[in-house]
């Protein structure tokens, strides 16, 4: 059971809101009517995914001290684990993501994220061959109160072959 600290910062919320293309001032301007209506700046609903930034090591973040599977001089720095890894569910592509919000997520909060593996299952698909699904559940708690802020459930899928609209 992995546990991880996630300090929630206003500048990170601003960057994240820009990255999802959402200009809502509730995410950046405390004096805006939108932020006031929300009781102050809040984070966008999917922001807790950005906790990956605060993991000491992450398989989907390049580390200059290690080979990286993306391109450099060559198209790949090492043998791919098949389909690239990743997804909120812990493998392959991201199949599903579900959030429950227990209280607003605000800048200044420090979250403690605890992740537990969930179910695994398989399905046959015409496009991707045998699909292997795996689930994980992450609870984000406010470090200062211990109260739940967000519960996130991710499902990842590993495919036998690349899946795209042209496949």
């Amino acid at each position, binding site marked *: 059971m992995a546990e991880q600290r996630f300090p929630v910062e206003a500048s990170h919320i601003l960057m994240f809101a820009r990255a*999802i293309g959402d200009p*809502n001032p509730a995410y950046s301007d405390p004096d805006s009517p939108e932020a006031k209506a929300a009781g102050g700046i809040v984070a966008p*609903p*999917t922001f807790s*995914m950005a906790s*990956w930034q605060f993991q000491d090591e992450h398989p*989907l973040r390049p580390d200059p001290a290690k080979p990286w599977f993306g391109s450099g001089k060559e198209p790949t720095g090492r043998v791919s684990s098949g389909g*690239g890894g990743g997804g909120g569910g812990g493998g392959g592509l991201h199949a599903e993501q579900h959030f429950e919000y227990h209280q607003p997520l605000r800048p200044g909060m420090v979250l403690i994220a605890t992740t537990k593996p969930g179910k695994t299952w398989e399905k046959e698909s015409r496009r991707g061959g045998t699909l292997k699904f795996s689930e994980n559940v992450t609870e984000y708690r406010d470090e200062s109160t211990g109260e739940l802020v967000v519960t996130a*459930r991710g499902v990842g899928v590993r495919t036998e072959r690349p899946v795209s*609209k042209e496949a």
Partner: protein
Amino acid sequence: MTVKRNDIKVGDSKTQVVFDNLTRSQIVMYAGASGDYNPLHSDEIFTTKVAGYPSVFAHGMLSMGATGRVLTDWFGADGLTKYGVRFVNQVWPGDTLTATATVDAIREEDGIAFADLTVSTTNQDGQPVVTGTATARLDS
């Protein structure tokens, strides 16, 4: 920003274009902000030559995040109690994404009113890319 219970009814719907001609740079922004640097989303050489896809493609979470706009613009940035989706088709550079949220039910729990919604986002070909559900808190 919260919606009042009497101002909303089952069947009400909102639709919004959340990305028009999604760019690779936008996808790179999402990688940088989220911490998901999977080369499938930013590294065209790896993605086409090694992974075997026709091009880089967006993070599912970029589509889910963008889809959330139709909900938070309607119910307020702190208005949701639940939001969940399935990623049903990939999103490619150049795609235009249109998100729709529809009220399925209005109900009360412990004296608080909630709207249960269906959400779906389609690309320019009308194919769904994200489908899911959400629940928003309503003012009495």
